[in-house]
């Protein structure tokens, strides 16, 4: 390189240095601002989803006696969620394949993590022979991938066979199991050669009616007996909680950590972690008894004991808080049950209990659990803390056991100045939550007893307003009110037209007197005839004269007639009648025959006058 070249090279190096400083000045502070989680994420190796998918299939073990089971295991380097099996597998005749476990591992490969999905089937053949599972296709990442064929040799049964491959078995405790109960399940991974299994990982319980507590897994290496042979096993204890009553199935699956130098096929000499599963286990789960559930039951199932509660102080002033620490020990779902809620009273302000997080003895299945109540006495007359209802269900006794937290003696001194303390306002939400939850518990519905009397009766369930008779019944009051209204209108009309009233009254009086008149004629009663005839004439003439009928005299009656009639026979008859009446009034003697002879003219006169009334 000449001098010019060295000059330009040194310039280029300086320029590069300036750019490098600028870059570091901009980028490095920015990186320092990233939060820890983002930094951690950036440091994680990426998952390899680009490498072509390679599928392996094998029977494990490849040779079994008739009636025994082998695992048909499909392994491929793809994400579990992306793998889809065909709806039906090409299973050779005589071989049964039962779906088993399914899991995924991530194996490190340099800067990347390789997903490794395993799908297990339990293969059972009753007859000896060679069975070939033909190649078939499955879908991974949306692409079709071929599963190679696999062979299984089934030999005749020849005595008790030992273990040919790592096997998982499940051991359950004795007794009955209830919904919500934490069941300690023992999962054993049996070592076929006593030293090939180095451990196990990814323990899972598969079953839609069970929940596994992953924090409860405890592993150890132990010696156990299988089919009369002693063998070494990896033992894992885990808490399984059934969430549905009835007969439910589950199986356990683990990834066995195998020493490849000692056992099994050797796809990767450094790491061999096959997925091994157990045979399905059927569990008959019982529901908790519906009746007799005590108030203080908060889901505790097992066998528990209560240690003596501890008060922070045995003497307190009204209004000052005191803490009550309760410790429960025993076996069961000790870390899972709800803390018992105190019953709300007006004499105490009670805050919700808090679990003691620092308690070193809380174990998943057995141990102790402590929780603390903060109580504030609101009266100096209190002599003990309130009893707090608590109960658990004992599967051994098959019944609820009352374990109410007993009252603790406490001396409450009067508040300063003798003022009765009020409920503290600092945590109203807490107070409400306690009282509401306590009220809810107190209001836990229970089925009531029988009614002692038949109670209220009805004709039908249908609403009354939908019944036709009810609609028809409305006609009655409507008709009555309408009739009353019409009656009143008519009465007002008559009040405005008094001539009509007089006419109606005259008609009625006329008919009455006419009947009497006809009777007098029939009896040949002269005096009666005269009286009735005059009364008839007065009644029939009264409306036209607007006068009282009894006040009318002969001239008044004659004025109701026309001039011709007045001077003719009708007028003459009327005059004779009134004259006969006058003479009879003074002399008490009358010519009956002469008077009654007036009847024909009188009848015509009355009928003529009656026409005016209509």
């Amino acid at each position, binding site marked *: 390189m000449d001098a010019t070249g060295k000059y330009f090279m040194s310039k280029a190096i300086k320029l590069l240095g300036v750019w490098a400083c600028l870059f570091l000045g901009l980028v490095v502070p920015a990186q320092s601002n990233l939060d820890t989680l983002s930094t951690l994420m950036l440091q994680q190796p990426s998952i390899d989803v680009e490498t072509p998918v390679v599928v392996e299939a094998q029977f494990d073990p490849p040779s079994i006696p008739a009636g025994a089971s082998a695992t048909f295991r499909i392994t491929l380097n793809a994400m579990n969620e992306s793998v889809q099996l065909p709806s039906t597998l090409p299973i050779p005749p005589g071989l049964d394949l039962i779906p088993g476990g399914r899991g995924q591992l991530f194996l490190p490969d340099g800067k990347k993590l390789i997903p490794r999905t395993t799908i297990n089937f339990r293969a059972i053949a009753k007859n000896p022979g060679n069975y070939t599972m033909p190649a078939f296709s499955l879908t991974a990442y949306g692409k079709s991938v071929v599963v190679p064929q696999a062979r299984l040799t089934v030999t005749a049964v020849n005595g008790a066979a030992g273990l040919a491959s790592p096997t998982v078995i499940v051991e359950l405790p004795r007794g009955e199991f209830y919904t919500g109960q934490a069941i300690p399940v023992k999962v054993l991974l049996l070592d076929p050669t006593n030293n090939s299994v180095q451990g196990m990982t990814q323990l899972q319980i598969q079953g839609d009616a069970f929940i596994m507590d992953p924090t409860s897994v405890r592993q150890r290496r132990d010696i156990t007996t299988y089919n009369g042979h002693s063998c070494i096993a990896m033992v894992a204890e885990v808490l399984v909680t059934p969430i549905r009553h009835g007969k439910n199935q589950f199986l356990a699956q683990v990834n066995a950590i195998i020493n490849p130098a000692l056992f099994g096929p050797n796809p990767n000499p450094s790491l061999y972690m096959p997925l091994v599963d157990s045979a399905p286990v059927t569990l008959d789960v019982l529901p908790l008894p519906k009746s007799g559930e005590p108030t203080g039951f908060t889901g505790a199932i097992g066998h528990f004991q209560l240690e003596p509660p501890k008060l922070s102080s045995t003497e307190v002033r009204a209004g000052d808080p005191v803490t009550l620490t309760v410790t429960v020990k025993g076996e069961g779902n000790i870390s899972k049950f709800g803390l018992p809620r105190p019953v709300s009273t007006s004499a105490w302000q009670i805050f919700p209990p808090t679990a003691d997080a620092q308690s070193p003895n809380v174990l998943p299945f057995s141990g102790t659990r402590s929780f603390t109540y903060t109580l504030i006495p609101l009266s100096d007359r209190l002599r003990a803390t309130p009893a707090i209802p608590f109960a658990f269900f004992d599967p051994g006794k098959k019944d609820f056991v009352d374990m109410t937290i007993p009252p603790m003696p406490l001396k409450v001194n009067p508040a300063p100045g003798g003022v009765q303390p009020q409920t503290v306002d600092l945590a109203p939400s807490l107070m409400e939550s306690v009282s509401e939850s306590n009220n809810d518990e107190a209001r836990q519905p229970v089925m009531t007893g029988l009614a002692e009397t038949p109670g209220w009766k009805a004709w039908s369930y249908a609403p009354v*307003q939908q019944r036709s008779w009810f609609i028809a019944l409305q006609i009655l009051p409507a008709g009555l009110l309408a009739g009353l209204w019409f009656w009143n209108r008519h009465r007002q009309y008559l009040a405005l037209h008094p001539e009509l009233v007089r006419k109606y009254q005259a008609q009625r009086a006329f008919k009455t007197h006419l009947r009497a008149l006809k009777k007098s004629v029939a009896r040949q009663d002269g005096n009666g005839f005269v009286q009735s005839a005059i009364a008839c004439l007065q009644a029939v003439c009264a409306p036209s004269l607007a006068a009282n009928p009894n006040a009318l005299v002969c001239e008044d009656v004659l004025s109701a007639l026309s001039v011709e009639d007045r001077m003719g026979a009708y007028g003459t008859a009327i005059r004779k009648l009134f004259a006969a009446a006058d003479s009879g009034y003074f002399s008490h003697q009358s010519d009956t025959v002469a008077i009654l002879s007036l009847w024909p003219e009188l009848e015509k006169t009355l009928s003529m006058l009656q026409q005016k009334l209509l």
Partner: protein
Amino acid sequence: MNTFLHFINTIMFRRMDLEHRQCRLGAFLASVFLPVFFLCGHENCLWAGTSETLFQEGNQAYVNGDYQAAAQTFRTILSHANAPASGVLHNLGNAEWKCGRTGPAILAWERANWLEPFNANTIVNLRFARKTAHLEAPNLTWYEICSTWLPSRTWAWLAMLSFWGGLAMIMLPGNLRKRRADWLQGVAAAAFAVFFICIPALAGIQTRSSLGVVLSDQTALRLTPTQDAQLLTHLAAGEMARVEMTRGKYLYIRMGNDSAGWVERVQFGFVGRKNPGD
């Protein structure tokens, strides 16, 4: 017409004095209210004799733990007496629940509550059953809640009496030529206020009468009213729904979560109507 008017006038003019008019007011009120009281009282007459004996027998069977017999006895009372009683329905619900029949138990309690909404025991039993069977109570509108304050049939009688009573308080003084007293006006206003309160309650009763209970567990909710219809979902016994229409032997129901479909009539029991099996 003349004869009729004459008859009216004859009556009117023969009894013109005040004493007679007061008698007529009493007769008018009696003619309105006596039939109502008679009809109300007649309900109790329908329920007597053998039904009372059967009721005690049913209670005794329940106490003895023979829940099947108790339920059958209570059903017999309801079918023979032809007059449902709230106490019988309450006890029938208890017996059905003990027999493990959730749907009929809730239907019986709902009917008891329909007849006698003040019975706290029935309300508690309904709450208990729904909590145990994980069922939801029906969503009621505000006027339906209003209608639960009194027995279903009481609202109709109350509306009738308040309306016609209020109208009578307004009409009678004028028609009987009496002074419109303040207290009469007050009574009329109160009666009409009661009537207007009754209107939403009556609407609530009307809509609540379409409520019913799913009787059988795993009742199929179908897309169409046919036997081979597509299955939408299965309903749990004791769930409540509203019937929106009927077609043949199928009912179109709407659940509380707004899912709707057709169910067979025999798998559904109306609360406020007579069912085929009653």
